[in-house]
Protein backbone atom coordinates (compact mmCIF):
# COMPACT_ATOMS: atom_id res chain seq x y z
CA UNK A 1 0.00 0.00 0.00
CA UNK A 2 2.61 2.53 1.11
CA UNK A 3 4.85 1.55 -1.77
CA UNK A 4 2.11 2.33 -4.31
CA UNK A 5 1.49 5.71 -2.69
CA UNK A 6 5.23 6.38 -2.81
CA UNK A 7 5.31 5.59 -6.50
CA UNK A 8 2.19 7.67 -7.22
CA UNK A 9 3.69 10.74 -5.52
CA UNK A 10 6.98 10.28 -7.36
CA UNK A 11 5.11 9.90 -10.66
CA UNK A 12 3.04 13.02 -9.95
CA UNK A 13 6.23 15.01 -9.48
CA UNK A 14 7.77 13.63 -12.67
CA UNK A 15 4.58 14.33 -14.64
CA UNK A 16 4.19 17.98 -13.80
CA UNK A 17 7.93 18.69 -13.39
CA UNK A 18 8.82 17.53 -16.89
CA UNK A 19 5.47 18.49 -18.38
CA UNK A 20 5.81 22.14 -17.43
CA UNK A 21 9.14 22.60 -19.25
CA UNK A 22 7.82 22.69 -22.80
CA UNK A 23 4.79 24.90 -22.28
CA UNK A 24 6.75 27.37 -20.17
CA UNK A 25 9.43 27.84 -22.82
CA UNK A 26 6.82 27.96 -25.57
CA UNK A 27 4.72 30.61 -23.87
CA UNK A 28 7.82 32.61 -23.04
CA UNK A 29 8.78 32.50 -26.71
CA UNK A 30 5.35 33.86 -27.72
CA UNK A 31 5.60 36.67 -25.17
CA UNK A 32 9.12 37.49 -26.30
CA UNK A 33 8.03 37.82 -29.91
CA UNK A 34 5.00 39.85 -28.82
CA UNK A 35 7.21 42.33 -26.97
CA UNK A 36 9.49 42.53 -29.97
CA UNK A 37 6.51 43.22 -32.24
CA UNK A 38 5.17 45.83 -29.82
CA UNK A 39 8.44 47.70 -30.11
CA UNK A 40 7.86 47.89 -33.83
CA UNK A 41 4.10 48.57 -33.84
CA UNK A 42 3.07 50.18 -30.54
CA UNK A 43 -0.30 51.17 -32.06
CA UNK A 44 -1.37 47.56 -32.54
CA UNK A 45 -0.94 46.73 -28.86
CA UNK A 46 -4.60 45.70 -28.32
CA UNK A 47 -4.55 43.21 -31.18
CA UNK A 48 -1.13 41.86 -30.27
CA UNK A 49 -1.97 41.24 -26.64
CA UNK A 50 -5.29 39.59 -27.50
CA UNK A 51 -3.69 37.19 -29.99
CA UNK A 52 -0.79 36.58 -27.61
CA UNK A 53 -3.18 35.43 -24.87
CA UNK A 54 -5.06 33.14 -27.30
CA UNK A 55 -1.80 31.59 -28.48
CA UNK A 56 -0.49 31.13 -24.96
CA UNK A 57 -3.77 29.53 -23.88
CA UNK A 58 -3.51 26.88 -26.62
CA UNK A 59 0.16 26.30 -25.79
CA UNK A 60 -0.80 25.88 -22.14
CA UNK A 61 -2.95 22.84 -23.10
CA UNK A 62 0.09 20.54 -22.93
CA UNK A 63 0.92 21.61 -19.38
CA UNK A 64 -2.75 21.30 -18.38
CA UNK A 65 -2.77 17.67 -19.58
CA UNK A 66 0.28 17.03 -17.38
CA UNK A 67 -1.45 18.80 -14.49
CA UNK A 68 -4.57 16.64 -14.83
CA UNK A 69 -2.53 13.42 -14.71
CA UNK A 70 -0.44 14.78 -11.88
CA UNK A 71 -3.55 15.60 -9.83
CA UNK A 72 -4.99 12.12 -10.45
CA UNK A 73 -1.67 10.66 -9.28
CA UNK A 74 -1.44 12.84 -6.17
CA UNK A 75 -4.91 11.83 -5.03
CA UNK A 76 -4.47 8.18 -6.04
CA UNK A 77 -5.68 5.92 -3.25
CA UNK A 78 -4.60 2.29 -3.67
CA UNK A 79 -7.31 -0.29 -3.08
CA UNK A 80 -6.77 -2.78 -0.29
CA UNK A 81 -4.65 -5.69 -1.49
CA UNK A 82 -3.75 -4.03 -4.79
CA UNK A 83 -0.67 -5.55 -6.40
CA UNK A 84 2.55 -3.70 -5.69
CA UNK A 85 3.25 -3.70 -9.43
CA UNK A 86 0.58 -0.99 -9.86
CA UNK A 87 3.25 1.41 -8.63
CA UNK A 88 5.30 0.80 -11.77
CA UNK A 89 2.23 1.42 -13.93
CA UNK A 90 1.75 4.77 -12.21
CA UNK A 91 5.42 5.66 -12.64
CA UNK A 92 5.16 4.78 -16.32
CA UNK A 93 2.05 6.95 -16.69
CA UNK A 94 3.92 9.87 -15.14
CA UNK A 95 6.90 9.38 -17.45
CA UNK A 96 4.67 9.16 -20.53
CA UNK A 97 2.80 12.39 -19.91
CA UNK A 98 5.79 14.27 -18.46
CA UNK A 99 8.14 13.57 -21.37
CA UNK A 100 5.33 13.58 -23.93
CA UNK A 101 4.22 17.15 -23.32
CA UNK A 102 7.70 18.70 -23.67
CA UNK A 103 7.59 18.58 -27.46
CA UNK A 104 4.01 19.80 -27.84
CA UNK A 105 4.64 22.71 -25.48
CA UNK A 106 7.76 23.81 -27.31
CA UNK A 107 6.09 23.20 -30.66
CA UNK A 108 3.01 25.19 -29.74
CA UNK A 109 5.17 28.19 -28.90
CA UNK A 110 6.89 28.35 -32.29
CA UNK A 111 3.81 29.20 -34.46
CA UNK A 112 2.64 31.62 -31.79
CA UNK A 113 5.94 33.46 -32.00
CA UNK A 114 5.91 33.68 -35.78
CA UNK A 115 2.28 34.86 -35.67
CA UNK A 116 3.34 37.73 -33.40
CA UNK A 117 6.12 38.56 -35.84
CA UNK A 118 3.64 38.64 -38.72
CA UNK A 119 1.19 40.87 -36.86
CA UNK A 120 4.05 43.15 -35.84
CA UNK A 121 4.89 43.60 -39.49
CA UNK A 122 1.34 43.99 -40.83
CA UNK A 123 -1.32 44.39 -38.12
CA UNK A 124 -4.15 44.24 -40.69
CA UNK A 125 -3.44 40.52 -41.26
CA UNK A 126 -4.08 39.65 -37.63
CA UNK A 127 -7.34 37.74 -38.24
CA UNK A 128 -6.07 35.24 -40.78
CA UNK A 129 -2.79 34.85 -38.90
CA UNK A 130 -4.71 33.99 -35.74
CA UNK A 131 -6.74 31.32 -37.52
CA UNK A 132 -3.60 29.90 -39.10
CA UNK A 133 -1.83 29.89 -35.73
CA UNK A 134 -4.67 28.09 -33.95
CA UNK A 135 -4.95 25.40 -36.66
CA UNK A 136 -1.18 24.85 -36.51
CA UNK A 137 -1.13 24.69 -32.73
CA UNK A 138 -4.11 22.35 -32.59
CA UNK A 139 -2.40 19.84 -34.86
CA UNK A 140 0.79 20.25 -32.83
CA UNK A 141 -1.08 19.17 -29.68
CA UNK A 142 -1.62 15.72 -31.25
CA UNK A 143 1.59 14.37 -29.72
CA UNK A 144 0.56 15.42 -26.24
CA UNK A 145 -2.93 13.97 -26.77
CA UNK A 146 -1.33 10.61 -27.65
CA UNK A 147 0.85 10.81 -24.54
CA UNK A 148 -2.21 11.62 -22.43
CA UNK A 149 -4.12 8.67 -23.91
CA UNK A 150 -1.34 6.22 -23.05
CA UNK A 151 -0.92 7.75 -19.64
CA UNK A 152 -4.63 7.48 -18.80
CA UNK A 153 -4.74 3.89 -20.07
CA UNK A 154 -1.82 3.07 -17.76
CA UNK A 155 -3.62 4.70 -14.84
CA UNK A 156 -6.84 2.78 -15.37
CA UNK A 157 -5.79 -0.80 -16.20
CA UNK A 158 -5.31 -3.53 -13.62
CA UNK A 159 -1.68 -4.50 -13.05
CA UNK A 160 -0.37 -7.90 -14.04
CA UNK A 161 1.61 -10.03 -11.59
CA UNK A 162 4.33 -10.88 -14.09
CA UNK A 163 7.60 -9.00 -13.64
CA UNK A 164 8.36 -9.18 -17.38
CA UNK A 165 5.11 -7.30 -17.96
CA UNK A 166 6.26 -4.57 -15.58
CA UNK A 167 9.36 -3.96 -17.70
CA UNK A 168 7.16 -3.89 -20.80
CA UNK A 169 4.86 -1.30 -19.28
CA UNK A 170 7.72 0.97 -18.24
CA UNK A 171 9.10 0.55 -21.76
CA UNK A 172 5.70 1.50 -23.20
CA UNK A 173 5.56 4.66 -21.14
CA UNK A 174 9.09 5.64 -22.17
CA UNK A 175 8.34 4.88 -25.85
CA UNK A 176 5.35 7.19 -25.91
CA UNK A 177 6.96 9.88 -23.76
CA UNK A 178 10.27 10.13 -25.60
CA UNK A 179 8.65 9.50 -28.98
CA UNK A 180 6.35 12.49 -28.61
CA UNK A 181 9.17 15.00 -28.11
CA UNK A 182 10.50 15.08 -31.66
CA UNK A 183 7.22 15.18 -33.63
CA UNK A 184 5.92 17.88 -31.28
CA UNK A 185 8.86 20.15 -32.03
CA UNK A 186 8.73 19.19 -35.72
CA UNK A 187 5.04 20.07 -36.01
CA UNK A 188 5.81 23.40 -34.38
CA UNK A 189 8.56 24.10 -36.94
CA UNK A 190 6.16 23.42 -39.82
CA UNK A 191 3.49 25.70 -38.37
CA UNK A 192 6.07 28.39 -37.63
CA UNK A 193 7.32 28.58 -41.21
CA UNK A 194 3.77 28.37 -42.59
CA UNK A 195 2.75 31.30 -40.38
CA UNK A 196 5.73 33.34 -41.55
CA UNK A 197 4.80 32.63 -45.16
CA UNK A 198 1.17 33.62 -44.55
CA UNK A 199 2.37 36.83 -42.92
CA UNK A 200 4.30 37.68 -46.06
CA UNK A 201 1.76 36.42 -48.60
CA UNK A 202 -1.72 36.43 -47.00
CA UNK A 203 -3.49 35.72 -50.28
CA UNK A 204 -2.04 32.19 -50.45
CA UNK A 205 -3.46 31.22 -47.08
CA UNK A 206 -5.63 28.34 -48.38
CA UNK A 207 -2.74 26.66 -50.16
CA UNK A 208 -0.39 27.20 -47.23
CA UNK A 209 -2.82 25.85 -44.62
CA UNK A 210 -3.38 22.78 -46.76
CA UNK A 211 0.35 22.14 -47.20
CA UNK A 212 0.99 22.81 -43.53
CA UNK A 213 -1.61 20.27 -42.46
CA UNK A 214 -0.23 17.59 -44.80
CA UNK A 215 3.31 18.33 -43.66
CA UNK A 216 2.34 18.13 -40.01
CA UNK A 217 0.35 14.94 -40.56
CA UNK A 218 3.38 13.24 -42.12
CA UNK A 219 5.67 14.63 -39.41
CA UNK A 220 3.49 12.94 -36.82
CA UNK A 221 4.05 9.50 -38.35
CA UNK A 222 6.89 8.58 -35.99
CA UNK A 223 4.71 9.69 -33.10
CA UNK A 224 2.11 7.19 -34.28
CA UNK A 225 4.76 4.44 -34.46
CA UNK A 226 5.55 5.22 -30.84
CA UNK A 227 1.86 5.01 -29.95
CA UNK A 228 1.55 1.65 -31.70
CA UNK A 229 4.68 0.22 -30.02
CA UNK A 230 3.51 1.54 -26.70
CA UNK A 231 0.04 -0.01 -27.07
CA UNK A 232 1.63 -3.32 -28.12
CA UNK A 233 3.88 -3.24 -25.05
CA UNK A 234 0.94 -2.47 -22.77
CA UNK A 235 -1.73 -4.77 -24.20
CA UNK A 236 -0.17 -7.49 -26.37
CA UNK A 237 3.01 -8.54 -24.55
Amino acid at each position, binding site marked *: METITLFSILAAGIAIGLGAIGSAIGEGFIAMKAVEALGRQPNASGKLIRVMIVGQAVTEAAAIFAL*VVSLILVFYTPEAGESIYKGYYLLSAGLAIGLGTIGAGLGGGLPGGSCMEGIGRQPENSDILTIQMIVGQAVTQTSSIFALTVSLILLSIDPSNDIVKVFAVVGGGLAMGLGAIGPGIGDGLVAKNANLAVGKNPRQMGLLTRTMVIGQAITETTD*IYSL*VVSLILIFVV
Partner: protein
Amino acid sequence: MDELGVVKLAEIALFGNVFSYHKSMIIMTWIVMAILVLMAIITRKKINLIPSRIQSLFELIIEFLDDITVSTLGKKDGRKFLPLICAVFMFILLSNWISILPNIFRFFGAVIAAGANMFGSELVTFTSWATLEVDPSAWYSFLIKFPNIEEPTKFLATDLGLSIMILIIAHTYGIRQNGIGNYLKGYMGDVWPTTGFWKFIFFLNPFLYMNILGEISNTVSHAFRLFGNIFGGGMIVVIVSSLIHSVIVPVGLLAFFGLFAGIVQAFVFTMLTVTYIAQQKA
Protein backbone atom coordinates in the same frame (compact mmCIF):
# COMPACT_ATOMS: atom_id res chain seq x y z
CA MET B 1 -13.22 5.84 -14.88
CA ASP B 2 -15.11 2.66 -15.70
CA GLU B 3 -16.06 3.96 -19.11
CA LEU B 4 -12.46 3.53 -20.26
CA GLY B 5 -11.83 -0.07 -19.39
CA VAL B 6 -15.16 -1.69 -20.15
CA VAL B 7 -15.64 -2.90 -23.69
CA LYS B 8 -19.13 -4.14 -24.37
CA LEU B 9 -18.94 -6.78 -27.06
CA ALA B 10 -21.80 -8.56 -28.69
CA GLU B 11 -21.19 -11.92 -30.32
CA ILE B 12 -22.77 -13.71 -33.24
CA ALA B 13 -22.13 -17.28 -34.29
CA LEU B 14 -21.82 -17.74 -38.02
CA PHE B 15 -20.55 -20.81 -39.97
CA GLY B 16 -19.07 -22.25 -36.81
CA ASN B 17 -17.03 -19.13 -36.02
CA VAL B 18 -17.85 -16.59 -33.36
CA PHE B 19 -17.56 -12.98 -34.48
CA SER B 20 -17.59 -10.28 -31.86
CA TYR B 21 -18.40 -6.66 -32.58
CA HIS B 22 -18.82 -3.47 -30.64
CA LYS B 23 -22.52 -2.73 -30.31
CA SER B 24 -22.22 1.00 -29.84
CA MET B 25 -19.89 1.33 -32.83
CA ILE B 26 -22.30 -0.45 -35.17
CA ILE B 27 -25.32 1.53 -33.95
CA MET B 28 -23.54 4.87 -34.18
CA THR B 29 -22.13 4.12 -37.64
CA TRP B 30 -25.63 3.35 -38.89
CA ILE B 31 -26.98 6.54 -37.31
CA VAL B 32 -24.26 8.62 -39.00
CA MET B 33 -24.95 6.97 -42.35
CA ALA B 34 -28.70 7.48 -41.93
CA ILE B 35 -28.22 11.20 -41.18
CA LEU B 36 -25.98 11.62 -44.24
CA VAL B 37 -28.39 9.82 -46.55
CA LEU B 38 -31.37 11.77 -45.19
CA MET B 39 -29.58 15.07 -45.66
CA ALA B 40 -28.66 14.07 -49.19
CA ILE B 41 -32.26 13.12 -50.03
CA ILE B 42 -33.66 16.35 -48.57
CA THR B 43 -31.14 18.46 -50.48
CA ARG B 44 -31.64 16.52 -53.70
CA LYS B 45 -35.42 17.05 -53.57
CA LYS B 46 -35.41 20.81 -53.56
CA ILE B 47 -32.24 21.55 -55.46
CA ASN B 48 -32.45 25.05 -56.83
CA LEU B 49 -30.43 27.68 -58.65
CA ILE B 50 -30.84 29.94 -55.65
CA PRO B 51 -29.47 27.63 -52.98
CA SER B 52 -31.29 27.01 -49.73
CA ARG B 53 -29.31 26.93 -46.51
CA ILE B 54 -28.58 23.21 -46.53
CA GLN B 55 -27.79 23.26 -50.24
CA SER B 56 -25.27 26.05 -49.84
CA LEU B 57 -23.63 24.14 -47.01
CA PHE B 58 -23.11 21.13 -49.26
CA GLU B 59 -22.01 23.37 -52.13
CA LEU B 60 -19.41 24.92 -49.84
CA ILE B 61 -17.98 21.51 -48.88
CA ILE B 62 -18.02 20.18 -52.43
CA GLU B 63 -16.42 23.30 -53.92
CA PHE B 64 -13.70 23.23 -51.30
CA LEU B 65 -12.89 19.57 -51.93
CA ASP B 66 -13.23 19.95 -55.68
CA ASP B 67 -10.54 22.63 -55.60
CA ILE B 68 -8.19 20.30 -53.71
CA THR B 69 -8.75 17.16 -55.79
CA VAL B 70 -8.66 18.91 -59.15
CA SER B 71 -5.45 20.78 -58.30
CA THR B 72 -3.78 17.58 -57.05
CA LEU B 73 -5.07 14.89 -59.41
CA GLY B 74 -5.89 16.88 -62.54
CA LYS B 75 -9.32 17.66 -63.91
CA LYS B 76 -10.33 14.23 -65.22
CA ASP B 77 -9.15 12.01 -62.39
CA GLY B 78 -9.93 14.62 -59.77
CA ARG B 79 -13.58 14.71 -60.75
CA LYS B 80 -13.62 10.92 -60.82
CA PHE B 81 -12.42 10.68 -57.23
CA LEU B 82 -14.44 13.63 -55.92
CA PRO B 83 -17.48 11.59 -54.75
CA LEU B 84 -15.22 9.25 -52.78
CA ILE B 85 -13.31 12.13 -51.20
CA CYS B 86 -16.54 13.96 -50.32
CA ALA B 87 -18.05 10.81 -48.81
CA VAL B 88 -14.95 10.12 -46.71
CA PHE B 89 -14.80 13.72 -45.50
CA MET B 90 -18.45 14.02 -44.59
CA PHE B 91 -18.62 10.61 -42.93
CA ILE B 92 -15.59 11.33 -40.74
CA LEU B 93 -16.70 14.87 -39.97
CA LEU B 94 -20.16 13.80 -38.85
CA SER B 95 -18.68 10.83 -36.97
CA ASN B 96 -16.34 13.14 -35.06
CA TRP B 97 -19.07 15.66 -34.33
CA ILE B 98 -21.85 13.32 -33.26
CA SER B 99 -20.57 12.88 -29.71
CA ILE B 100 -21.30 16.49 -28.82
CA LEU B 101 -25.01 15.62 -28.91
CA PRO B 102 -26.23 15.20 -25.36
CA ASN B 103 -27.71 11.83 -24.42
CA ILE B 104 -31.25 13.08 -23.77
CA PHE B 105 -32.65 9.60 -23.13
CA ARG B 106 -30.34 9.07 -20.21
CA PHE B 107 -30.96 12.62 -19.00
CA PHE B 108 -34.74 12.15 -18.87
CA GLY B 109 -34.24 8.73 -17.30
CA ALA B 110 -32.11 10.29 -14.57
CA VAL B 111 -34.68 13.06 -14.00
CA ILE B 112 -37.50 10.51 -13.67
CA ALA B 113 -35.38 8.35 -11.38
CA ALA B 114 -34.49 11.31 -9.16
CA GLY B 115 -38.18 12.25 -8.99
CA ALA B 116 -39.14 8.69 -8.12
CA ASN B 117 -36.50 8.60 -5.42
CA MET B 118 -37.88 11.82 -3.97
CA PHE B 119 -41.33 10.22 -3.68
CA GLY B 120 -39.86 7.27 -1.85
CA SER B 121 -39.38 4.72 -4.63
CA GLU B 122 -37.37 1.69 -3.50
CA LEU B 123 -36.05 1.00 -6.98
CA VAL B 124 -33.57 3.89 -7.07
CA THR B 125 -30.44 4.09 -4.97
CA PHE B 126 -27.98 6.95 -4.98
CA THR B 127 -24.42 5.65 -4.81
CA SER B 128 -23.04 9.16 -4.42
CA TRP B 129 -24.76 12.51 -4.75
CA ALA B 130 -24.37 12.62 -8.54
CA THR B 131 -24.58 8.95 -9.56
CA LEU B 132 -27.57 6.69 -9.18
CA GLU B 133 -28.46 3.09 -9.79
CA VAL B 134 -31.85 1.95 -11.03
CA ASP B 135 -33.35 -1.46 -10.48
CA PRO B 136 -33.96 -3.15 -13.88
CA SER B 137 -37.64 -3.78 -13.02
CA ALA B 138 -38.43 -0.04 -13.11
CA TRP B 139 -40.16 0.98 -16.37
CA TYR B 140 -37.71 3.85 -16.99
CA SER B 141 -34.60 1.68 -16.65
CA PHE B 142 -34.29 1.32 -20.44
CA LEU B 143 -33.72 5.08 -20.64
CA ILE B 144 -30.79 4.85 -18.23
CA LYS B 145 -29.32 1.93 -20.15
CA PHE B 146 -29.47 3.72 -23.52
CA PRO B 147 -26.05 3.28 -25.21
CA ASN B 148 -23.57 6.12 -25.03
CA ILE B 149 -23.47 8.50 -27.97
CA GLU B 150 -19.92 7.80 -29.12
CA GLU B 151 -17.96 8.69 -32.21
CA PRO B 152 -17.64 5.71 -34.58
CA THR B 153 -14.12 6.99 -35.30
CA LYS B 154 -13.25 6.41 -31.64
CA PHE B 155 -13.00 2.70 -32.43
CA LEU B 156 -9.94 1.42 -34.22
CA ALA B 157 -12.00 -0.91 -36.40
CA THR B 158 -13.73 1.99 -38.21
CA ASP B 159 -10.47 3.84 -38.82
CA LEU B 160 -8.56 0.77 -39.99
CA GLY B 161 -11.46 -0.16 -42.25
CA LEU B 162 -11.43 3.25 -43.87
CA SER B 163 -7.64 3.33 -44.30
CA ILE B 164 -7.51 -0.20 -45.76
CA MET B 165 -10.29 0.76 -48.18
CA ILE B 166 -8.21 3.73 -49.29
CA LEU B 167 -5.09 1.57 -49.59
CA ILE B 168 -6.92 -0.79 -51.95
CA ILE B 169 -8.45 2.05 -53.99
CA ALA B 170 -5.13 3.88 -54.34
CA HIS B 171 -3.23 0.78 -55.44
CA THR B 172 -5.92 -0.34 -57.85
CA TYR B 173 -5.71 3.11 -59.38
CA GLY B 174 -1.93 2.83 -59.52
CA ILE B 175 -2.06 -0.52 -61.34
CA ARG B 176 -4.68 0.77 -63.79
CA GLN B 177 -2.75 3.96 -64.42
CA ASN B 178 0.75 2.53 -64.92
CA GLY B 179 0.14 -1.11 -65.84
CA ILE B 180 1.14 -3.97 -63.57
CA GLY B 181 4.76 -4.06 -64.77
CA ASN B 182 5.55 -0.44 -64.08
CA TYR B 183 3.62 -0.60 -60.83
CA LEU B 184 5.79 -3.45 -59.56
CA LYS B 185 8.94 -1.75 -60.86
CA GLY B 186 8.08 1.22 -58.67
CA TYR B 187 8.79 -0.92 -55.62
CA MET B 188 12.35 -1.71 -56.74
CA GLY B 189 13.65 1.81 -56.22
CA ASP B 190 15.89 3.68 -58.64
CA VAL B 191 19.19 2.00 -57.75
CA TRP B 192 18.46 -1.67 -58.44
CA PRO B 193 18.54 -2.56 -62.16
CA THR B 194 15.42 -4.31 -63.48
CA THR B 195 16.88 -5.98 -66.55
CA GLY B 196 18.45 -9.35 -67.37
CA PHE B 197 19.92 -11.34 -64.52
CA TRP B 198 18.97 -8.77 -61.89
CA LYS B 199 15.31 -9.50 -62.52
CA PHE B 200 15.61 -12.99 -61.02
CA ILE B 201 17.21 -11.93 -57.76
CA PHE B 202 14.79 -9.08 -57.11
CA PHE B 203 14.06 -10.46 -53.67
CA LEU B 204 17.59 -9.52 -52.55
CA ASN B 205 16.81 -5.85 -53.08
CA PRO B 206 16.63 -4.14 -49.68
CA PHE B 207 14.63 -1.24 -51.12
CA LEU B 208 11.83 -3.63 -52.03
CA TYR B 209 11.19 -4.46 -48.38
CA MET B 210 11.61 -0.84 -47.30
CA ASN B 211 9.02 0.27 -49.85
CA ILE B 212 6.53 -2.44 -48.90
CA LEU B 213 6.98 -1.60 -45.23
CA GLY B 214 6.55 2.07 -46.06
CA GLU B 215 3.18 1.38 -47.69
CA ILE B 216 2.01 -0.69 -44.74
CA SER B 217 3.14 1.93 -42.24
CA ASN B 218 1.32 4.60 -44.27
CA THR B 219 -1.94 2.73 -43.84
CA VAL B 220 -1.34 2.00 -40.17
CA SER B 221 -0.43 5.60 -39.39
CA HIS B 222 -3.40 6.85 -41.44
CA ALA B 223 -5.77 4.92 -39.19
CA PHE B 224 -3.98 5.48 -35.89
CA ARG B 225 -3.75 9.24 -36.40
CA LEU B 226 -7.53 9.56 -36.50
CA PHE B 227 -8.05 6.96 -33.77
CA GLY B 228 -5.52 8.47 -31.37
CA ASN B 229 -6.84 11.99 -31.71
CA ILE B 230 -10.53 11.19 -31.36
CA PHE B 231 -10.05 8.54 -28.68
CA GLY B 232 -7.68 10.79 -26.73
CA GLY B 233 -10.00 13.77 -27.00
CA GLY B 234 -12.97 11.73 -25.82
CA MET B 235 -10.88 10.39 -22.94
CA ILE B 236 -9.90 13.86 -21.78
CA VAL B 237 -13.55 14.97 -21.69
CA VAL B 238 -14.53 11.86 -19.71
CA ILE B 239 -11.64 12.28 -17.24
CA VAL B 240 -12.27 15.98 -16.63
CA SER B 241 -16.02 15.35 -16.27
CA SER B 242 -15.36 12.63 -13.71
CA LEU B 243 -12.84 14.82 -11.82
CA ILE B 244 -15.48 17.55 -11.40
CA HIS B 245 -18.23 14.94 -10.84
CA SER B 246 -20.10 15.98 -14.02
CA VAL B 247 -21.30 19.16 -12.31
CA ILE B 248 -20.71 21.29 -15.38
CA VAL B 249 -20.26 19.73 -18.79
CA PRO B 250 -16.82 20.94 -19.89
CA VAL B 251 -18.11 23.10 -22.72
CA GLY B 252 -14.74 24.50 -23.74
CA LEU B 253 -13.19 21.06 -23.90
CA LEU B 254 -16.09 19.72 -25.97
CA ALA B 255 -15.82 22.68 -28.32
CA PHE B 256 -12.08 22.14 -28.76
CA PHE B 257 -11.92 18.34 -28.94
CA GLY B 258 -15.36 17.70 -30.39
CA LEU B 259 -15.83 20.45 -32.94
CA PHE B 260 -12.41 21.88 -33.71
CA ALA B 261 -10.18 18.80 -33.49
CA GLY B 262 -12.97 16.89 -35.23
CA ILE B 263 -12.91 19.09 -38.32
CA VAL B 264 -9.10 19.33 -38.37
CA GLN B 265 -8.69 15.55 -38.20
CA ALA B 266 -11.39 14.96 -40.84
CA PHE B 267 -9.50 17.39 -43.08
CA VAL B 268 -6.15 15.71 -42.36
CA PHE B 269 -7.57 12.27 -43.17
CA THR B 270 -9.11 13.52 -46.42
CA MET B 271 -5.96 15.38 -47.49
CA LEU B 272 -3.83 12.31 -46.87
CA THR B 273 -6.31 10.22 -48.88
CA VAL B 274 -5.90 12.58 -51.82
CA THR B 275 -2.12 12.51 -51.35
CA TYR B 276 -1.91 8.71 -51.27
CA ILE B 277 -4.00 8.46 -54.44
CA ALA B 278 -1.91 11.13 -56.15
CA GLN B 279 1.32 9.33 -55.21
CA GLN B 280 0.21 6.33 -57.30
CA LYS B 281 -0.21 8.52 -60.36
CA ALA B 282 3.44 9.22 -61.14
